[in-house]
């Protein structure tokens, strides 16, 4: 299987391990990623609060490049990139005049915009059974709280999952053999880009999320967004210093969890670079155990 890849800026910076773990597991799952040549910024939050046209044009440029490079499908692992690309796609398809204007701005033609996948959709496409098939590690000690964040399943109608009570990520997590917990704050705001300017807000909001997950029995958070990861992982130290009775919880990318299931090491997956150490007991070599 081959698919176009839009890494986005985080995959080369704060979320290097997200990119690394993805590339590692996709080797095992026989998926070839072809990076969009000359891709640029998706616009993220900054563009669409500045100018709607700018946000559309930035995404449209990447979509046009992908189309020109013959890609029918592209995979954007970052939730913000996915949200921008998918929202822009819908808008370009539904508003012809807007499309013509954007085409003039980016000096590219847009005809057949590729299908866009976020990480959950992507693994649905790859097939959960493929993960189960190649599973090497027993993850049943992991009780995962799947955290979708604000962008992954929104806006309503663009994604196939319910934007208020999603459960598609749980399906993938279950395929790795880990357990999932039912909890309240799958979509609650983590504070997002306030992380730097108003760390206090992020500390409070992230604590609420992490507390609720743990209250419902989770021992690991699973995320699908570099921003969510940085807030939930990096800010736990700040939470701890503000609330001394706070108990930390490791935060993994969905790709890292799959990687663990496929028998990759924490180092290979970049889990060793996280702020909160992942030290839950997992058993290797399921198959051997079964055959023995």
């Amino acid at each position, binding site marked *: 299987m081959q698919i176009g890849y839009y890494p986005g800026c985080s995959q080369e910076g704060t979320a290097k391990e997200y990119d690394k773990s993805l590339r590692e597991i996709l080797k095992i799952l026989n998926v070839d990623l072809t990076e969009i040549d000359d891709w640029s910024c998706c616009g993220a939050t900054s563009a669409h609060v500045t100018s709607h046209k700018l946000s559309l044009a930035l995404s449209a440029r990447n979509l046009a490049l992908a189309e020109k490079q013959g890609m029918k499908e592209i995979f954007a692992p970052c939730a913000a990139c996915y949200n921008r690309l998918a929202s822009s796609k819908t808008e370009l398809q539904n508003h012809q005049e807007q499309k013509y204007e954007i085409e003039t701005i980016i000096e590219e033609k847009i005809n057949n915009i590729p299908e866009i996948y976020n990480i959950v959709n992507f693994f649905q496409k790859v097939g959960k059974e493929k993960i189960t098939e190649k599973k090497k590690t027993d993850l049943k000690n992991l009780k995962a709280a799947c955290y979708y964040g604000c962008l992954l399943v929104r806006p*309503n*109608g663009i994604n196939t999952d*319910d*934007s*208020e*009570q999603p459960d598609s990520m749980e399906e993938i997590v279950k395929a790795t053999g880990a357990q999932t917990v039912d909890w*309240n*704050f799958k979509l609650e705001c983590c504070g997002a880009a306030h992380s730097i300017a108003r760390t206090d807000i992020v500390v409070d909001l992230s604590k609420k999320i992490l507390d*609720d997950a743990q209250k419902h029995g989770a021992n690991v958070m699973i995320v699908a967004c570099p921003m969510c990861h940085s807030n939930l992982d990096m800010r736990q130290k700040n939470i701890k210093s503000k609330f001394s009775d706070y108990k930390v919880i490791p935060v993994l990318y969905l790709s890292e969890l799959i990687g663990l299931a496929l028998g990759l090491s924490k180092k290979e997956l970049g889990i060793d670079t996280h702020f909160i150490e992942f030290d839950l007991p997992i058993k290797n070599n399921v198959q051997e155990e079964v055959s023995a």
Partner: protein
Amino acid sequence: MKIGVFICHCGENIGRTVDCARVSKAAGFFPNVVHSVDYKYMCSDPGQNIIKQAIKDLQLDGVVVGSCSPHMHEKTFRKAVADAGVNPFLCEIANLREHVSWVHDDMDVATDKAIDLVRFAVEKVKRNAPLKTIQVPVTKRTLVIGGGISGIQAALDVANAGYEVVLVEKEPSIGGHMSQLSETFPTLDCSQCILTPRMVEVYQHPKIKLLTYSEVEKVEGFIGNFKVTIRKKARKVDDTKCTGCGDCMQKCPIKKKALSEFDENLTTRSAIYVPFPQAVPNIPVIDTEVCTYFKNGKCSMCKKVCGRDAIFFEQEDQMLTEEIGAIIVATGYKLYTIDKKPKNSEIKGYGEYGYGKYKDVIDGLQFERIASASGPTSGEFKRPSDGKEPKKIVFIQCVGSRDESKGFSYCSKICCMYTAKHAMLYKHKVHDGEAYVFYMDIRSGGKMYDEFVRRAIEEDGVKYIRGRVSRIYEENGKYIVKGEDTLAGVPVEIDADMVVLATAMIAQPEASKLAQTIGIPYDKYGYFVEVHPKLRPVESSSGGIFLAGACHSPRDIPDSVAMASAAAAKAMVLFGSDMLEREPTIALVNENLCAGCFYCKKVCAYNAIEVKQIFDRQGNFVKEVAYVNSGLCQGCGTCNATCPSKSIELIGYTDEQIYAEIAALM
């Protein structure tokens, strides 16, 4: 032909922009026009007398009136002409108001156009033929579809006037949603107490034929002469033998598998069941989906215990045909069931409220059942999850209503009132309980309605918060309701024991299918549509079919009952005479030209085109041609425009007449 032209000023309406004197003068020179005058109010008595007098004095045999739209006064002028002894269809209207004076400013241009339009009408009237209205007989029987409060009211009104009624209800019992309600606003009288006597009255009425557990399959014919096919679904119980003793239900081993529809899934019922103890008729039905006998043939406990041998497993659906003159549609509504993933993909759902996930987040009808003395908790307030008395209830209005992005853009109209009632009933029984209502606006128009809401707020201490709820989640057995108080401008968080969602009223899911079966229009929501929103609110555009209750739009009990009585009165108007008069301006087939392609049949919106076989004198089949059913044809002209061989003409609007009109304008 001697034609008279009469130009009306319509006070200033036409006179202000059209020089009526110039129009009448010009018309006087048109060929065949022997008389032409103008007058301030032609529709008034003196105005009509001018027309009548001219007809008598000059022996006119054609009349053109230049006035307002024919929709307004064509009937008036045609009657005046008929009174003077001329066939009314020899009178034509030139629309000088809506088509001229109201849409133009320049007097010269307007006057020229008015002259053209009068010339146009003169050319048409020259080619008009005297026509006679069509007379059709009337079957004085009414079909009422739906046995809720609207259907019951309509059936009783018609039957009490002495006409026969066939009442069809698809559920095993009549009573509809009203039978599920606890108390009714604004008087707080018990719903069942006022409804059940009416249900029994229907059952015992000698003029009413009650068909429960039945559905309308097919409607043929036309106003005054419908032939209706009704499917009487197999109850698997012989209703002639059953006495309603209930032994079968007592002994039925299936008690837990089937959710009670009447209790809105809050309780279970047996496989053989009556929906509720006061059901009319009190004859059970076997739910073949859950009954063990119908699954594997193993159980037949009900048959064994029935002392009357009334259980009849082999019973099949029966088809009945009824001759009907008027139809009253009263199929009611459904509550919008919000769920995580609603079946109807157009509806986005309200996953943030956790309905279907949290047991104590319920809808309005479920609350009615909990509050009802005949309900699962015998009227005591206990929440579904653990049976504890809720000390704090949050009511959320407009869930699905007035919400274009997720639900429906219309207002469901009854929720403000029933939410006030719910909160009030709760406060009356749980004195230390707290009731919160989230609302957008309080819409309590109606007699004693606003007073009722004020009473809930001021006397019973229900706390109203203006704002929407963004989410509900469970925490330590409480439901955290997060919303906004838009008056105070602050976020609100309430830890409730139970949440009641006032979900939107929606059309019955099969409403559009029924509309297609009986041939009436429906809107984008599935509600049936009236002919005129103000002046003909209970008539559908199909002659002889009337609308009552919430199948037309969201409405409460008083409105539904009033509408039902109005529909009954409309049906009885039909029965006032033995023959019905219909406009003769309908389509007519030239059978010699017709090639039998039946494009006309495909485009006819009223199913008025039939297939007629032509035989020669020896009785040999020659060909099939189109035939217009004069009872059904509404004279719309679609067939006329479609016919490739021009073998269908619309009487009164023949091609010859139209071409003459066009020629007059050139």
